[in-house]
């Protein structure tokens, strides 16, 4: 049998809370440092913004522009690329379609827009050779 008197119980409770708080924060710190070895390097969103900076200058200030990504849109990387493009180009509205006057393309490799349907009237205006390409619809 073990007797736990009031002061000991109180000290154990306080000790548990202090210890848990310390461990939790040390773990948080170490996890952050481990998952971001180069903390001060540009993050993914900033890098995407930098990639789009030159394209942004060619686009109108307001309105709706199209977006074309790699064919397999839906995986997290492609989804992120589309949302990050919208984030970078605001206050322009970016739609995931190519039936617009201006279309921003973010590709991984040398992929090109389909040359049929809405894509048949688009001409390449700018290729930044970092996967970002700007297209404009040919005036009829």
């Amino acid at each position: 049998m073990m007797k736990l008197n009031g002061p000991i119980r109180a000290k154990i409770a306080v000790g548990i809370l202090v210890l848990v708080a310390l461990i939790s924060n040390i773990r948080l710190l170490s996890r952050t440092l481990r998952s971001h070895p180069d903390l001060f390097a540009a993050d993914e969103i900033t890098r995407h913004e930098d990639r789009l900076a030159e394209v942004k200058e060619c686009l109108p200030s307001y309105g709706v522009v199209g977006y074309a990504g790699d064919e397999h849109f839906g995986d997290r990387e492609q989804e992120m690329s589309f949302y990050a493009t919208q984030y970078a180009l605001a206050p322009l509205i970016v739609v995931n379609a190519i039936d617009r006057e201006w279309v921003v393309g973010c590709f991984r490799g040398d992929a090109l827009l389909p040359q049929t349907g809405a894509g048949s009237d688009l001409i390449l205006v700018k290729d930044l050779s970092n996967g970002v390409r700007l297209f404009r619809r040919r005036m009829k």
Partner: protein
Amino acid sequence: MTLYALVALIGPLLAAFVLVGLLCPTEGLGLRGLLLRVSLTVGLAFGLSSCGFFLWLVMVGAPGRAFAPVELTGMLALSVGLLVAGRHRKRSAIAPPDCAVAEDARMGVHLLRGLCLVLVLSVAAFVLMTCAAPHGSWDGWAIWNLRARFLFRGGGRWADGFSEYLAWSHPDYPLLLPASIARFWSYLGVETTMVPAAVAMLFTFATVGLAGASVSILRGRSQGLLAGLTLLGTGYYVRHGAYQYADTPLSFFVLAAVVLLCLRKRASQTNRGLVFLAGMMMGFAAWTKNEGLLLVASIIVAHLAIHLRRRALTTCIRHVFWLLLGAAPILGIVTYFKLSVAPANDLLSAQGFQATLGRLCGVSRYAQVGEFLLRRFISYGEGMPFVLAACFLLLGRNPNLRDRRGIALALIVLFLMLSGYFLVYVVTPHDLAWHLRTSAKRLFLHLFPTAVFVFFMLVATPEEASRRPARTHRQ
């Protein structure tokens, strides 16, 4: 830039500080009173200034050069007006803590040291996470900072940010956070990731300050320090703050409304100011996230339940009146935003009577939601519920429960909000498993600081537990 940043902060902070002082008497409460006042000031300042910025956008248009001087003059005039108005006002002090035994100074010092150490680690972790992801995590940049960019960069076309094309970014979400960020950028004249990060940091640590100060006032210093430690010690809470989501500001306003209503029971005379301020906080919750509207309904229903049980209809009407009076201007802005600016909410617009009825009748959905929420609760904050359960077993319950009605109100509010969230999941038009997976943990976060507050109101303080006779445990 630093000067502009200071100017952008000082106007609303000053007005909010004076307003809090007028409505929430903290005289005689020492440092804990000051901490309470400062914490409430943070939320109120962002709430007031974001409303002002939105009204300017709607009535004047893009915030040009005139915005900063006009707003600053307005805030200073408001501060002076409030100071003059409050000069001869009769103050109703808040009664001291109801700790059954005297505070243990040594225990307090040790706890304070522990809290300071944890605070330093939390701030360091927050700063490092912000350096790693200065735009915040996914929803941070894809929803809240994106909307702030539309408000700031859009000029006369700021409303483009609420286009149906952007339905994926939930353009119907209210604007406290985006408007606060865009307003700050308007003062600075440039966009910087420092602003959303600073706003996130202020809300995260003001919530900790608010929980610690309020528990300290109501239950004693050691208990307040333990409440602060619990919040800081929940890694998910600090990490989520750095994500720059609106869930942390919402958790602040939920806690603020509940705390103010609990403090009202301690005021030496019927204090309408505290109820009015609680109403404002409730309104700002609705201006932060749609879930805030559920808080408004929950608090009113909780008031009705408590007062009608005591057959105190007149008191009930008076309280609800002052609550709604505080919330009304903000709820007016939320209503205008919802009716004139925001598109329809995805959860509501996708509901059809037959489909909703079908989902409501699906027993398996209740089981799925219940099981998922239970699992999330158990694993919340890396096992924090178990830590708190262990503390409850060791410390025992509060032997001198003075704030029964306040605690009952807080518990009813928590229960109603959880029930509301539960029901939203049951009728969600989205894939239920996906909806639960992507949001359940954040919904717990809205209520977590309030739950911590209630927990430390219900549990005995270390000093009270120390006075208890020994318990025999089998080895």
